[in-house]
């Protein structure tokens, strides 16, 4: 289930948007719960837990862009979509990492593509885990906590986001099949990387969260860059 929050001062616009979201949920078999608040002030003052936020820009008091800036000070992850008739502001959406924007009056077809994109982002690693068979027993690890996995002498070393390392007796290809997540990518014969944790691509080197670097093999370079292109573009 995903919680959808609409921040919209006009009742009619909010109703249209809500109807479109529910129509999408019905047609795609998604469980979406919509809630609505009227002002950005209310949004910033109260706690409104949400997985997806649709924010009108032209709001009275604090406008949508300012509210988004406030949101990003404590939440960098929640997908944000602007709903506006002021397209020139929406272009600036990258400043608050907005995922998309929809021009008013909202049409169902516009919303479909946007919600597809939002749900793709949410599903990358959300809540997924994998079981790692270590020498001390089985450890359940969240996929988003794995930075990269490398093959070392018939073992796999899982490098986690907190800097720790888990060693498991398994093969990289076996793990690759079991991961079933679009966020993981084989970059060389002996290494799989979580795309979410790439910080810098410099030549044939990937710098990862925590400061470690891994090399991209020459034969995989094109596939890696192509996948990164899809990942950054939000196509996967």
């Amino acid at each position, binding site marked *: 289930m995903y919680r959808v929050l609409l921040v919209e001062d006009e009742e009619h616009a909010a109703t249209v948007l809500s109807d479109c979201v529910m129509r999408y949920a019905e047609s795609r078999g998604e469980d979406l719960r919509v809630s609505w608040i009227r002002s950005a002030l209310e949004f910033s003052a109260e706690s409104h837990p949400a997985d997806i936020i649709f924010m009108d820009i032209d709001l009275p008091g604090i406008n949508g862009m300012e509210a988004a800036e406030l949101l990003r000070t404590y939440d960098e992850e929640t997908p944000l979509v602007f709903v506006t008739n002021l*397209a*020139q502001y*929406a*272009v*600036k*959406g*990258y*400043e608050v990492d*907005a995922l*998309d*924007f*929809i*021009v008013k009056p909202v*049409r*169902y*077809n*516009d919303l*479909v*593509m*946007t919600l*597809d*994109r939002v749900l793709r982002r949410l599903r990358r690693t959300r809540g997924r885990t994998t079981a790692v068979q270590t020498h001390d027993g089985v450890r359940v690890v969240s996929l988003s906590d794995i930075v990269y996995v490398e093959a070392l002498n018939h073992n796999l070393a899982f490098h986690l986001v907190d800097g720790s390392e888990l060693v498991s007796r398994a093969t990289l290809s076996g793990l690759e099949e079991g991961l079933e997540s679009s966020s993981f990518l084989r970059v060389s014969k002996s290494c799989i990387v979580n795309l979410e944790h*790439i*910080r*810098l*691509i*410099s*030549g*044939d*080197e990937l*710098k990862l969260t925590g400061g470690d670097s891994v090399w991209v093999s020459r034969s995989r370079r*094109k596939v890696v*860059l*192509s996948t*990164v*292109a*899809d990942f*950054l*573009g*939000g*196509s996967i």
Partner: protein
Amino acid sequence: MDDKVQAFYTIIKLTVAIVLFSHTLPHRERLGLRISFVAVGAALVSFAGFSSGFTMYPPLTDFSSYLIGILSFLVVLSLMLVGQLTIYRNSLLCSLFCCSMAYSLENFSSEVERCVAMIFQFPSYPPPIVLGSLRYWLVSSVIFLVGYSVLIRRIEKSGLRQIDDPAMVLALVLAIMVNMVFDLIVKELGVSDIAVHYVVLLNVVYLSLCVFIMYAEFEIVYNRRLEIGIAAEKELREAQTRQYDLTLSNIEAINAKCHAIRHRIYQLEEGSEIVSSDELAELAQEISIYDTKIKTGNDALDVVIAERGLVCEQWGIVLACIADGSALDFVDSPDLQPLVGGILGAATAVVRGIESRDARRISLHVGANMGMTSVHVECPCAHQFDLGDDPVGSESSRDLRAAIDRYEGILSSKVVDGTYHLNVLLPRPHGRGLKLD
């Protein structure tokens, strides 16, 4: 001079010649490590060769000895190629060009040195090593200096990276092999009891061959540059034509819109005296399209998006963009039209195939991440659309692909669940990459 000293000097000269021909090419990463690797590798190979009795100039007794001689030259040429490719980031053809030119220059300088030795002979043979070396390096330095001024600098101006004609480069490699045979014969005859005028004649032919090979290789690069220049000019003319068509189309769109607005105003004038607020709002909405100035932080990008926005408007396509213009600040302004304009043009071609005008929408995202700039477009596509119809593979997207290649970027496109995705990834120039913390 001793054969081993001679071979050692030859290796040093070849190395210097390769560096002279290649020094304007970009280096690979971890240069120090790569140079050390090549130096150690060359030392080990040389040591192994010398200790196993290898000689660069074996005595020519029969056909097989010629074959061994040529093979040994080919081995040296191959090792030069490996070394050059290890250090410099260039194509195999470009590397082959640099190495074969370096080989010809080295041969030429050695041959000149041998001719000088024939004319100004030392009182004793073999000459003392210090004097022999002094003359050898003096002659070699002069030839290299002349070669650099007359040949290498001109080649640099013509652009080494433009070498992409395998047939011509391979023809030259064959010429180099003929040169190798001559090299062996001349050296062999130089120490045999053949009449001096034959030796002089052969030396003249050999020197001429060296000069011809270098001249022919230079001509290849020069002609290639001319060809590229002509092609670029042709491409520019085509781009200007396309730009003209686009501008014309925009003017038509604006005229049509203005005509519609004027018509609406006439209607209002002829109607009731009181104009309703709804009618005014509708009119304001019509005009607002031209008030909406896109501001991405990159003026050239703003123009491209605004122009394409008008084209989209004509086709009833909603263009939604979230763009950080500064992410494309390393792209030259004239390249933004074929790049971003080309991407949006490809998406427009896909969306036009959708019957329902309500479903026509293009979403553009431009941003910087991971030290790369990502340009992403997605739009709905008709059900029958497959990648065989992909506009980025067509002739009309040649400019787009060329622009991406120019910035060493990558393009990927796919169709997922009725949505067409087009992603372009461009590496940001060194030092301008974003580091995420």
